[in-house]
């Protein structure tokens, strides 16, 4: 009996290069499973981003365009407007999505682009070695907030899923985590819903993933997931913040 199978949409022989304990690997696998289950491979074009997410096309056997930092939503908009029959999603970190790319992210949502946005929130710039990002928690020490993020100098973290839910063009906005098996299963269901909303052409769909960065948090994978549960979820509660298919009932 086969108990483990690599999804068809993962490139043959590819090995994830993410750090041990990083949640990117779990999220990429969820993505690949859904692309398989919904039979999307042949119609998918993904806009990747800059950061740890940049090498997505090394792992997924789908068509991808690399976007300059912050511009994934613009690239995805161009793709979708040129080829409306394609399935288009972005895969971005929180810095890419909510700092340098906030204008593109918000306006894509406001236009109701029939695209799915995926934002991996690990409260730091991981690729460059753990600097303060837009989602860095108050009190969190990073290489650019060495005494901890305090509001007088650094201001407040952004609650991305809530902000995107406020945009009238958004059909679906949710926040999920992958720290436990139950949460992984829930995250997959929610991402599937977001994909289906795009396939039905209902508007912009968005899923924020709370994720670990053990390397830059200087934690073990277990400790990092404890932090997701004990610190991040207090500020970034899991849940569906907008779903027009439910509100319509």
């Amino acid at each position: 009996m086969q108990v483990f199978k690599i999804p068809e949409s993962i490139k043959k022989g590819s090995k994830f290069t993410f750090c041990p304990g990083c949640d990117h690997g779990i999220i990429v696998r969820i993505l690949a499973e859904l692309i398989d289950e919904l039979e999307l491979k042949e119609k998918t074009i993904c806009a990747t981003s800059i950061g740890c997410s940049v090498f997505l096309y090394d792992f997924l056997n789908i068509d991808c365009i690399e976007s300059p930092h912050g511009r994934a939503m613009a690239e995805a908009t161009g793709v979708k407007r040129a080829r409306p029959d394609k399935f288009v999603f972005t895969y971005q970190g929180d810095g890419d999505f909510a700092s340098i790319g906030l204008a593109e992210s918000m306006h894509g949502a406001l236009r109701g682009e029939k695209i799915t946005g995926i934002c991996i929130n690990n409260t730091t710039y991981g690729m460059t070695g753990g600097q303060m990002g837009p989602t860095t928690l108050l009190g969190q020490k990073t290489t650019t907030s060495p005494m901890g993020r305090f509001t007088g100098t650094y201001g407040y973290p952004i609650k991305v899923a809530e902000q995107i839910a406020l945009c009238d063009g958004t059909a679906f906005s949710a926040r999920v985590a992958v720290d436990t098996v139950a949460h992984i299963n829930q995250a997959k269901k929610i991402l599937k819903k977001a994909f289906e909303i795009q396939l039905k052409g209902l508007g912009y769909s968005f899923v924020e993933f709370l994720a670990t960065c053990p390397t830059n948090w200087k934690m073990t994978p277990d400790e990092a997931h404890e932090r997701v549960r004990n610190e991040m979820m207090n500020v970034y509660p899991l849940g569906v913040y907008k779903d027009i298919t439910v509100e319509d009932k």
Partner: protein
Amino acid sequence: MDKVLVKGNYAIAQAALNAGLECYFGYPITPQTEIGEYLSDEMYKRGLGYVCAESELAAINMVLGAASTGAKAMTTSSSCAVSLMQEALSYACSDEVPIVLVNVMRAGPGLGYIYPAQGDYNQAVKGGGNGDYKLIVLAPSTVQECIDYTYKAFYLAHKYRNPTMLLADGLLGQMMEPAVFGEYPYPEIDNSSWALTGAKGRDGRAIFSVATAEDTQNQHIYNLFAKFKTIEENETEWEEFNTEDADILLVAFGSMTRNIKAAMTELRKQGLKVGILRPVTLSPFPSKRIHELAAKVDNVIVVEMNMGQMVNDVKLAVEGQAKVDLVHRPVGQWLSVEEITQAVKNVLEKSYASV
């Protein structure tokens, strides 16, 4: 084919439609805004892609996304806003994505103003973004050429998978002239070997510029420049008048060409053997031809509406064979025929003239 009286900006917009434009993304800026206004209506009527982008950053990146699927896509802008697009142009060159960008130049630096000027020459031809790359740059001088070279911009961009810029200016954008549209005269380019279409019957393909291995990065840049060498050999374009017997060669591009032609006629009447070379492609630059002509003339005089930008490329092409001078003004009223005529005479008397 009917001759119509048409404004330069509308000519560019309609020519892009005739060329098979599938997607337009833009943000308003004078003096090119009419292009986006015209296309908003026409694209919608045709069921084509149109977005009033939230910024020029977004606009050029939407073009990059659309063109990565093989679609004919364009944005139009002006000077200070084209500066915002340089990062994406660098990506598109490295990615080999065929985007078309129109820069209807205004004056600068900074916000400058909407006076016509030619101050973006260096940014356009030297690569205004990071790294080693070159755009193809076409500089029209009449409304008719705005049409002709918009057609050619789409053809060259797709033929060579290289971002291509139409470098016009406020004079051309805002001026009405009689012109003939005709039909798009170039063949369609097959993009099936690289365009992102969804991985149907094949593995996924990615368009990207990141190269973590030093060798890969080196080879990629060598390949890009080998391609640009081919473009230079095949596509370098210029116009020449009265160069057979010329002692004095005037060089100008874009709108400035108009008045040096009239100045040449006037100076010839006064007995001076003046010829003209006008680069049409600013990148690739007709350096070879300028080098050949420089061997036969005494003076090369570059006339441009900036502080002297193309003059440096002319000097490199002349390689000391003739004396090179600059006649210029940074912004404002285009140098008149009288001013050019007088300045040429001054140059011949002195070593340098600034109007």
